[in-house]
């Protein structure tokens, strides 16, 4: 989507290795979110940020950490990847005035 990009788009990694996914926005939105999407579960919130250096946990935060040192970047880190973290990860940004989320195109992560 225009204004939000995720990198990488695809990644295969080994169990136990650290992985960082990047979400970059050019919209200057305050709110940023990381979701994971799995069959039968829809999208589940991992972590979110409501400003630079302000983050909080979502419903499935175990095994994940995040950082936001600049408005435009929100990083999701898997400190030691496990096979259960194989998923499609989506970043979203929000303009609170409209309460509408804009989603990135996703990162497909496979942990082998």
């Amino acid at each position, binding site marked *: 989507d225009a204004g939000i990009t995720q990198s990488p788009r695809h990644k295969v990694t080994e169990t136990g290795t650290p992985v960082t996914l990047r979400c970059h926005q050019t919209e200057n939105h305050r709110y940023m979110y990381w979701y994971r999407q799995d069959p039968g579960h829809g*999208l589940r919130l991992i972590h*979110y940020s409501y400003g630079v250096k302000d983050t909080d946990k979502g419903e499935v935060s175990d095994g994940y950490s995040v950082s936001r040192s600049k408005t435009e970047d929100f990083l999701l880190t898997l400190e030691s990847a496990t096979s259960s973290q194989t998923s499609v990860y989506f970043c979203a940004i929000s303009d609170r005035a409209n*309460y509408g989320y804009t989603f990135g195109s996703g990162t497909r992560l496979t942990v082998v």
Partner: protein
Amino acid sequence: AQSVTQPDIHITVSEGASLELRCNYSYGATPYLFWYVQSPGQGLQLLLKYFSGDTLVQGIKGFEAEFKRSQSSFNLRKPSVHWSDAAEYFCAVMVSNFGNEKLTFGTGTRLTIIP
């Protein structure tokens, strides 16, 4: 805690037929409700949203949804589907937590269109 239920995992509809996708929510206050669509390999796109006022809301691509408080429902409808409507559809509810709004999604309904 808030929750969203989409009881239909998969629906098949003939092209040109009408469509209704069901969504029920559980939330104590008046919720903000959304429908998103996801085409294969893509991110999610907002179809429509309900905050307050008229309970029938119009969205993009000819979709509409009706908020029914008595039934805790927010069903998505389209009078005549097109093959391009084949996708996965997600209902979502927004919860405001001291200004930190978060979306909670249903598990999705996959829509297949047959000729």
